């Protein structure tokens, strides 16, 4: 489904990703763990085409998309829920969703709203006036309006209350299971990622250093090690 090979990405001459390899198969839910500044967002933005790749390759389904522009990636089925949500603050919730559904058939937005009913009564509010949790749900809903095959989520739990985290987790698992949406989620929240992902890669200093199983996250030794890695 998605193949990332020897991906090198940087800002100007500062290298951030130094050869990331990642292979994601159909139907999977992949978590990527990493501390602040390890390059998680950089990886997501590179996958979305928002950052140029220095070397390496990205293959999505059958096509090499290494230097494809973001809007073409979006149209070919990749959706992005960025860190900080990036809601259009002056557009209403409805218009935010319409932006997500630009190319989708009629009724897509309604179906998405049925899955996330909490947004229904907020439709006419400006996106910027929503709470953090509501914005996060909106960002996910907006991404879903494009009927994606692959969804990239960057720290969806950042600054969000537990009940909504729960809701997001359930929603993502359901979409993955009923609509075979492939999910790649970047996180620092161990509990959330343990509940959601079936495979977890650890990103450290621009490299995927190892893979762990969700159950390892309940393993105290790993937790200590992970916490220690940040320093």
């Amino acid at each position: 489904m998605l193949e990332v090979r020897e991906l090198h990405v940087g800002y100007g001459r500062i290298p951030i990703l130094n050869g990331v390899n990642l292979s994601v198969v159909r139907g999977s839910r992949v978590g990527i763990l990493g501390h602040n500044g390890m390059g998680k967002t950089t990886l997501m933005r590179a996958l979305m085409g928002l950052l140029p790749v220095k070397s390496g390759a990205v293959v999505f389904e059958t096509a090499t998309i290494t230097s494809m522009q973001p809007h073409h990636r979006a149209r070919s089925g990749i959706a992005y829920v960025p860190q900080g949500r990036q809601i259009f603050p002056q557009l209403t919730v409805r218009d935010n969703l319409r932006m997500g559904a630009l190319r989708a058939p009629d009724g897509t937005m309604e179906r998405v709203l049925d899955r996330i009913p909490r947004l229904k009564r907020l439709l006419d509010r400006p996106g910027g006036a929503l709470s953090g949790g509501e914005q996060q749900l909106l960002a996910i809903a907006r991404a879903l309006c494009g009927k994606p095959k692959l969804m990239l989520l960057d720290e969806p739990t950042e600054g969000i209350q537990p009940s909504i985290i729960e809701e997001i987790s359930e929603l993502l698992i359901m979409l993955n299971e009923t609509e075979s949406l492939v999910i790649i989620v970047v996180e620092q929240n161990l509990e959330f990622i343990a509940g959601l992902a079936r495979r977890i890669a650890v990103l450290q200093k621009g490299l995927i250093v190892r893979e762990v199983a969700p159950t390892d996250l309940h393993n105290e030794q790993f937790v200590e090690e992970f916490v220690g890695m940040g320093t």
Partner: protein
Amino acid sequence: MALVLHDMNGLLMDLLAITLLEIFYGIASLALISLGLAIIFGMLRVINFAHGEFLMIGGFSFIMLTSAGVNMWIAMLIGAPLIVGLLGIVVERVVIRNLYGRIVETILATWGLSLFLMGAASLLFGYFQRGVSPPFGTLKIGNYQEGVYSIFVIVLAAAVYLSTYLVLRYTKLGLIARATMQNPEMASSLGVAREKVYAVTFFCGAALTGLAGAVLAPIAGVVPTSGLAYIARSFITVITGGATVIAGTGIASVLFGTVSQLTAILTRPVWGEAALLLTAVILLRFLPAGITGRYFRNGL
């Protein structure tokens, strides 16, 4: 006695009507010459120093088309906007595209473009193209007489603003434009071809500028240096208005049009321009991000 009083009232009414008409005309012409600049600045954050020359080329397109036998209204409302709009697309592609986000470079590049266009116009059209006289007759208000064309300009400006508002507010194109303006990266992540939006926006801004140039041509006449006559006022209006295209430019036009016309009517023309500048300086002192940087931030 009563009769005299009635006469006085009549005179005052005439004066009031003509004064209002002048103020509206001042607002309308300011609003027209600024809208295209505001769209390009508000949507793309590009400061187009060749804006005055876009107006000039709009005027020339109108004059050349009418003198080639094209119906005057077609030349004004379709021909000139189309020509300047296409020029806008070329300029966006050749000059602006590689400079998004680099304010100083865009200023330098568009400034160079303005000199180039002025030179090209003087070679191509020269200073002696015969203009078109203002159509329609006049309207008598008591002792005063006003050109019906002024009323046409007022109505047209209102129509242009209203339709720009409707397009931005209620069409898919408008939605995409607003979203791209607020967060271009996110818009592209949702499948919006950013470059296409920029090109279309530039086209629209340039076309509206071409329209304004054509509408004012019968009044002002056109020479290759005509742009110089507009550039300062349209910049002051747009900067004071802030980044919100319609509300900002609209409010600034109303404010400046009223202040400068009223001052010019009550005192002397020199003070009219001075009042405009003074208002702008005071406003920007207290609202550095423009009127809409502070209020109406969620508007259009």
